[in-house]
């Protein structure tokens, strides 16, 4: 087991205007698992992902990653946890427009104090894996959406994190590209030391999931409510 979530609740605002985004969520993820979190808009998927990844503090409950209760860590230790254990692919990619594609990919390595040139070397290698070697010197905004997504994935996996989290990785891609990218992640990244969590709406990529959990209104439900 790589991740264990126990009784997590998260709300925004104060009563009476309080929004309960997560209500007593518990689940776990094993190594070599590609877990999908799916559910309607506003059901709390993104909130859950940020609680798991040490970015949004829950109101109660615990998140244990590789035996560490992350919400008991100090701010610096939490930053280190994100840097050393997690890889992120944000829905909007959040690539750095002032850096080249290659430098973008090297950012997590730079933060890990890998020497600049060495980081670029490693980034170049990963860029080849995502088949974008010829775009190394371009700024990311000159790439197509699918290419940017691959750059974001390359940045997330360059430091070989144990837990990769992807928020809506196919939201802005056409069906084929989306499937190809998710298949790539499943085939290249997943192994017995790692796990992947994917938040998505997109049922075209369900075939790659090891397991799917459904969320509704801040809760995990066994079966999705049939859509009317």
């Amino acid at each position, binding site marked *: 087991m790589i991740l264990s979530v126990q009784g997590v609740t998260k709300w925004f605002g104060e009563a009476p205007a309080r929004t309960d985004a997560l209500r007593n969520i518990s689940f776990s993820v094993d190594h070599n698992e590609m877990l999908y979190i799916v559910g309607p808009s506003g059901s709390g998927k*993104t909130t859950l*992902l*940020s609680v798991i*990844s040490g*970015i*949004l503090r829950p109101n109660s409950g615990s998140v244990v990653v590789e035996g560490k209760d992350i919400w008991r860590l100090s*701010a*610096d230790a939490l*930053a*280190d*946890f*994100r*840097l*050393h254990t*997690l890889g*992120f692919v*944000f*829905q*909007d990619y*959040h690539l*750095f*427009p*002032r*850096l080249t594609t290659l*430098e973008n990919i090297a*950012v*997590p390595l*730079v*933060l890990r*104090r*890998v*020497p*600049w040139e060495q*980081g670029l070397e490693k980034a170049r290698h990963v860029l080849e894996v995502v088949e974008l070697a010829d775009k190394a010197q371009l700024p990311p905004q000159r790439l197509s959406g699918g290419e940017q997504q691959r750059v974001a994935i390359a940045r997330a996996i360059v430091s070989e994190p144990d837990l990769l989290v992807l*928020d809506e990785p196919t939201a802005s891609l056409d069906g084929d590209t989306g499937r190809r990218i998710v298949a790539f992640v499943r085939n290249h990244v997943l192994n017995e030391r790692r796990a992947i969590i994917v938040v998505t709406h997109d049922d075209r990529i369900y075939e790659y999931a090891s397991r799917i959990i459904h969320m509704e209104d801040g809760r995990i439900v066994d079966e999705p409510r049939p859509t009317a």
Partner: protein
Amino acid sequence: MSGVLKLALKLLLGDRGKFMTLVIGITFAVFLMMLMTSMFFGIIEHSAGNIINIGARMWVMDPDVQTPQNSIPMPNYVLDAVRSIPGVDYAVPLYVGAGLVRLHDGTYQPATVIGLDDATLFGRPELLDGHTLDIYGNNAFFVVRDANYAKLDSPKMGTTFEINDRRGVVAGIAHVSVGSLFGLPTLYTTYSRATQDLPSTRYEMSFILAQPKSAAAIPAIKRAVAQLGYLALTDQEFTTRNDRFYEFQTAMGTNILIMTLISFIVGLSIAGETFYMFVLDNLERFAALKAIGARSSELVAMIFYQSLVVSFLGFGFGVLLASALVAFGKLRIPNYAAMITFQNIFMALVMVLVISGVSAYIGIRRILRIDPFIVFRS
């Protein structure tokens, strides 16, 4: 260089427009501050011109005297008293006053008259033309060739004029290292002639110039002079006293200080504002870095580094620009009193560091409040 700082630099340089605005803003502020302070230092230097030109180690004066231009005459016995102070090697009188010169065309021109001790000519200027001893000639004056020389119709050797209704003749053309601030031509003559020819109060001696036997004797001399009811200052102390007078007791100094302050505030607001805009523009990027795992201290280091880089660039350009302008001004404008010293470079540096620190502080406060959660929201 640490990779994080390199990243900071790339983020900064990537935004050409903001980067240029920042550098130009700080350049402009430094330029203004340098010009203001250099003018100020120039004015002060020139106002202390007589102290520097005369070159005496100690000056004895009435305690109410603030500057070498405005003296309060002392009775002659003070000279004897000073001469008899044990630590004093020698002491001579100096006359500093104003005379009214009547030019050939019948117009009048006020001039500063300096009367040097007859026996020693202590404090005499360097001569461009003529001989030192010619000062003893009948009605002889040395004229200083500076920016105000032309106001006496650029007299030549032997030119005669009237000063306070007496005859004067140019017996030498002199050069002094610091020109006058006050726009008046300067004439040198002997102490006895100066005190005879010029309208005089009961007492005539403006200053006593004293040479201590050694630096160690200075405190005792000061005490002894104070016992006489007068004030003895070293040349540096007199210069400082003069500086303070112009800084705080004249409109000139106060105004320039205010203008310097304004240029500082302008620079601070341009730089602070632009830097804050830069930080706001990059908020998402900093949030992404934070989400990926940058520590807060690393973000703080990045911001500091960025503000330091623009500040030092602006500082360099500002100093260069101001120096170029002052140098050009000195070439073209004879009376231009501006001076760039290490002191005003240092002052500008301190102000730039304050600007950079304040800008960084504003940016950092914003950065530390970023919720990296925003990177998950579209």
